[in-house]
């Protein structure tokens, strides 16, 4: 699968980007908070290096996607409303996960349609950016690679490719690192089988999908897997580890930060 097809963006959904602000909010997301906090911190550091001050609201928790995808709209709404409340100032909100960014951008307006929070939700969605998207389009970063030559393979989540449509930003950033060979995986467009509760509710299919994904990633002979979504990372790494395949994984933020330090 080549990168061009990987990042098909719909012509009708072109986004306008603001000039680089002095300050942004950071929405760490629950998975990162609990399992991959380092990745979250590296995202913060990447932003700070671009001269952007990062504010981390203490009252944040989860975007509400797990319940939303499971069809528990009320519970999802409650949690989403708490996030809208936790980021009150009119500042961009940067999210180091395309999945959560996609949830906010596409589904918050729909979730709060015809409720008192309708306009707040739309406004919240409009100022939400996925991390790599923000680095590329708003900060216009130029990365200086300081690492050793390495072969990596990127897995872009379904949200990054089809929902938040930011997979090309991740590819662009990796492309800026001159010692990095960016391998392409077969069927790179295909879902890794995570899908939140899908992995638990339809375990057999989810497993078939992640096994195929592991095969195509391992077949690239890359030394490292990078991804911008921790759901995919947890799923793929967990499966690779169980298979005893040696392909370590890093969040894209960690990878970019470490190589440019």
């Amino acid at each position, binding site marked *: 699968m080549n990168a061009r097809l990987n990042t098909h963006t719909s012509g009708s959904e072109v986004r306008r980007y603001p000039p680089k602000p002095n300050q942004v909010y950071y929405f760490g997301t629950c998975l990162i908070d609990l*399992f991959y906090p380092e990745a979250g911190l590296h995202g913060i550091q990447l932003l700070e290096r671009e001269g952007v001050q990062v504010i*981390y609201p*203490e009252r944040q928790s989860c975007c509400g996607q797990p319940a939303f*995808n499971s069809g*528990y709209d009320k*519970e999802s709404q409650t949690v989403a409303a708490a996030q809208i409340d936790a980021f009150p100032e009119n500042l961009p909100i940067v999210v180091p996960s395309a999945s959560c960014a996609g949830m906010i951008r596409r589904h918050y307006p729909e979730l709060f349609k015809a409720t008192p929070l309708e306009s707040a939700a739309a406004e919240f969605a409009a100022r939400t950016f996925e991390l790599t998207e923000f680095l590329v389009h708003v900060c216009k970063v130029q990365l200086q690679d300081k690492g050793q030559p390495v072969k990596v393979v990127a897995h872009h989540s379904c949200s990054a490719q089809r929902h938040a449509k930011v997979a090309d930003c991740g590819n662009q950033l990796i492309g800026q690192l001159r010692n990095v060979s960016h391998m392409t995986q077969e069927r790179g467009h295909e879902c890794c089988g995570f899908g939140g509760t899908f992995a638990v509710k*339809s375990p057999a299919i989810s497993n078939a999908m992640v096994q195929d994904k592991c095969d195509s990633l391992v077949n690239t002979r890359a030394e490292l897997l990078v991804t911008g979504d921790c759901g995919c990372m947890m799923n793929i790494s967990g499966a690779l580890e169980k298979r005893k395949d040696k392909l370590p994984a890093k969040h894209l933020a960690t990878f970019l930060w470490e190589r440019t330090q």
Partner: protein
Amino acid sequence: MTTPRATTMHKELRVAETKDLQSRIQEALQDQELRSNFRGAMDFLTAKRASVLPDAAEFDAWRSEGEAIRHRCLQKLPELLEQFEAAATTNGVRVHWAETADQANEIILGIMQSHNAKRMVKGKSMASEETGLNHFLEAHGIEALETDMGEYIVQLDQSQPSHIIMPAIHKNKQQIAKLFEQKVGVDYTEDVDKLIGIGRQILREKFAEADVGLSGVNFAVAETGTLCLVENEGNGRMSTTIPPVHIALCGIEKVVETLQDIPPLLRLLTRSATGQEITTYFNMINGPRQTNEPDGPREVHVVLLDNGRSRIYADQQLQQTLRCIRCGACMNHCPVYSRIGGHAYGSTYPGPIGQVVSPQLWGIEKSGALTQACSLNGACRDACPVNIPLPDLIRRLRHEGNDLTATSQTPGKGSQRKTLEAISWRLWAWLSTSPKLYRLFLRAAGRFRLLAPRKLGAWTEYRTAPRPAAESLHELAKKHLEKNYE
């Protein structure tokens, strides 16, 4: 050749229905031959489609147009249906209305009985699969023979279609060769042209003998009363022209306003379905044989089938389901369908559109579990030529399944609700909206991380369990950002 017995076929279908979805999925996943048949076929179909839709921006423009046409026609559906009925009637077509599948079958049987007809040849019709027509007619002593090569194979095999466009796509040529050897009694040959030749030979005779030809409908044009039929094998044309009576079974959502609506939709349909710029046949049927015409059926009937579609129509969001032009692209691109195939869904309509249609037609109680077999990855949505937001609809139906007070008229809503699950989500919402408690939970998870369970049910059957970090991002950010942690 002996005609396959539809009764047996229907029995098998029932068996499939009683097995639960997850075990059907397990079985399909373990069938290596099936998996490689689907993998190969889906790769072929998606590549062919991509080759005739090379320009993403152009495709987007086309499908926005397709979406707009279907949307407009649905908005005016009641009016267009009346207009269609009037125009078709003027053309000499007899129009029947069927509220349910049973009514549709009865109407068709009635027409056949009024002609003392015993033999029916069928062009491809998913609507007739939906109503279980073959079985019904068989029970009334009528032979209903499928003439689409794929449908014919499936009927020989006493099975059911595994794909809405390619009914026998689950079989490879060796399997088909064996089937012909066993059921038709010809010598084993893997020569596809020969196999098709054998099938055609048999079918030719049947066309000539048939009393009635039944077809589906791709588009029904309100302006002119025209029935449009898209096909590649010519069997659709023969089914609708050789027998003295033609009956078309047409879902009520198939009506479009004018003839001008057809080319943009046809362009999307053939490319999305089979990767063709145009199919070999495109039939436009305006009515029965006129007095000065040498051939064609003497009677043409169209049965307009509701069977739950009005109910779907009543809900703004779910109404989008009815935009579907049945191209099959959503299943070809689905990572679940391409691994488990069509039969595992246990429903007439498999794949993403099936996961959306089935619970709405047959109720959430019976088909709601289908909505779980989806990772919401969105590949189907990207492929759909009329922009149906399939993942959003699947998600919505999950919600309908959980919520007794949900707003649609979908039968069986709330029937998938599991108390423990509902309570867990409530607890999760409480935790996620209580900042202090949430942080306490993070801290506890970090401190006791080594005690975190190493076995997490289905998750750890195939993966290792993730371990909470020693310090959460809340904690790291607090240290790192100091005053900017607020």
